[in-house]
């Protein structure tokens, strides 16, 4: 037999099993430790946000990079999502003879759910990944150390403006996404299919509530904005300073942010739209 057959002896199997368990435990404790580190990082970031808010120009530049440069993808996606909603919604509604309710369906779906969630997912992949890659590369090329050596706190000067830029951009992008989606729904529902324009708009106006629907949608998008911006800046700052490290961190930002958005959406929806709030 080959020497490797020793592997199957019982004491080797126990050792093997123990090693696996240790690895599993190690992974879990590492993840918990990392979550704690990320929380302390957020705390430090918030404490040192003075520069980002006092010299608001820095944050405005990041709003441009995270927000304005994401406009095209957000607006185009919003338009298409709204158009598809109208097509599918009309298909179903007209079976029950209530196709005038199309405006309500399109608006509520977008404002409550699809606007914040889809805009958040797009934001994570467009802006979140860019933030992670930029901070990670600045770290890998010693730009952050250089700043530290110039007595400038990189968290205050580089990280905080990007965080706040993301947090401020996200609700605006989600609102624009919803607005564009409603316009897309109008184009398909009213202009293409021929639903009555008066019914489309007036029913929407009557049914969409500012506090219950729009405000809750804004709160959702704000929460997603904080989550994505936090994950993006943390992953960038924590990335190993190598090409591989930065690429992995970028991927992790997109994956973690997307999962966080979907999980948070479930929790927020459960809190906001259940328990008979009259809708």
């Amino acid at each position: 037999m080959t020497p490797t057959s020793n592997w199957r002896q019982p004491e080797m199997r126990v050792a093997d099993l123990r090693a696996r368990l240790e690895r599993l435990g190690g992974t879990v404790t590492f993840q918990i430790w990392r979550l704690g580190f990320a929380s302390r990082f957020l705390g430090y970031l918030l404490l040192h946000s003075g520069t980002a808010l006092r010299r608001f120009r820095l944050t405005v530049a990041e709003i441009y990079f995270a927000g304005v440069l994401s406009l095209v993808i957000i607006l185009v996606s919003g338009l298409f999502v709204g158009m598809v909603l109208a097509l599918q919604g009309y298909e179903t509604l007209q079976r029950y003879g209530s196709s005038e309710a199309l405006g309500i369906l399109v608006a509520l779906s977008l404002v409550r759910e699809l606007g914040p969630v889809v805009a958040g997912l797009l934001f994570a992949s467009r802006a979140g990944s860019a933030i992670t890659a930029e901070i990670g590369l600045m770290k890998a090329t010693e730009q952050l150390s250089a700043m530290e050596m110039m007595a400038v706190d990189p968290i205050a000067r580089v990280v905080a403006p990007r965080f706040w830029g993301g947090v401020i951009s996200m609700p605006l992008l989600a609102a624009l996404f919803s607005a564009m989606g409603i316009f897309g729904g109008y184009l398909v529902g009213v202009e293409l299919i021929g639903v009555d324009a008066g019914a489309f708009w007036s029913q929407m106006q009557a049914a969409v509530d500012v506090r219950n629907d729009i405000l809750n949608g804004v709160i959702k998008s704000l929460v997603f904005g904080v989550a994505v911006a936090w994950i993006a800046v943390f992953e960038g700052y924590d990335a190993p300073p190598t090409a591989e490290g930065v690429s992995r961190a970028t991927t992790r930002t997109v994956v973690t942010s997307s999962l966080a958005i979907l999980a948070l959406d479930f929790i927020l929806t459960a809190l906001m739209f259940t328990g008979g709030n009259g809708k």
Partner: protein
Amino acid sequence: MQQSKIVEISNVSFGYDPAVPVLREVSLDIPRGSVVGIMGQSGCGKTTLLRIIAAAYLPTRGTARVLGTSTRELDRDALYAMRRKMGMLFQFGALFTDMSVYENVAFPLREHAMLPEDLINDLVMMKLHAVGLRGAAYLMPTELSGGMARRVALARSIALDPQLILYDEPFTGLDPISFGVIVRLIRSLNDSLGATSIIVTHDVQEALGVVDYVYFMAAGRVIAQGRPDAIRASEEPFVNQFVNGRRDGPVPFHYPAPAYDADLELAAA
């Protein structure tokens, strides 16, 4: 040369992992006004020592007094106040890639001094002139050669007229012309600013031409020190091997490994 000490390292030990010390009982002094080289092989702890001087790390044991204060006693504000009196040149410059050359040099001025824009402009142009790159002020860092980037970084690190300039491997990857330029700049900037310079490098031959005094490190200790002539003539086996670039000596050519036969599986055959 004045004899007051700008950096005093006494009995400093340090390890990223307590079990693996990188520095062992290092003691050295840097007199004000001098250009001092810290040399040795890659991994001998010289960059770590530089980071101890920059107070990026605190010594595990011993004290590092820099600009008159022990780095252990600094809180965040005092640390930043100290670093404002220091400049550091990183190995590859570490320029901010999203800013032009001009903005890179202006960065420390804008962050630390509330100066009117025309004064910042004058200062930036003076610093860039000192490194010969006034004409490159509006280029982006990606448009510069390695040597030019290093010079811009040098202009940036002297923007606040530091008392102490730290160089981390300033010669790595430079062509002979850029190299000569950097060597002359280190000396002329040091003397014209009245600063003190510490150069960490393994380019021994080149660096010996510019420094006043050399500390030689191996395995986390200072094993030799002296003026450049004394180092060149040193009989210490390690220094001798290093300065002359011999392949074998106290530092073996081979990284510790099992017997060659075993790795080639000759024994098993």
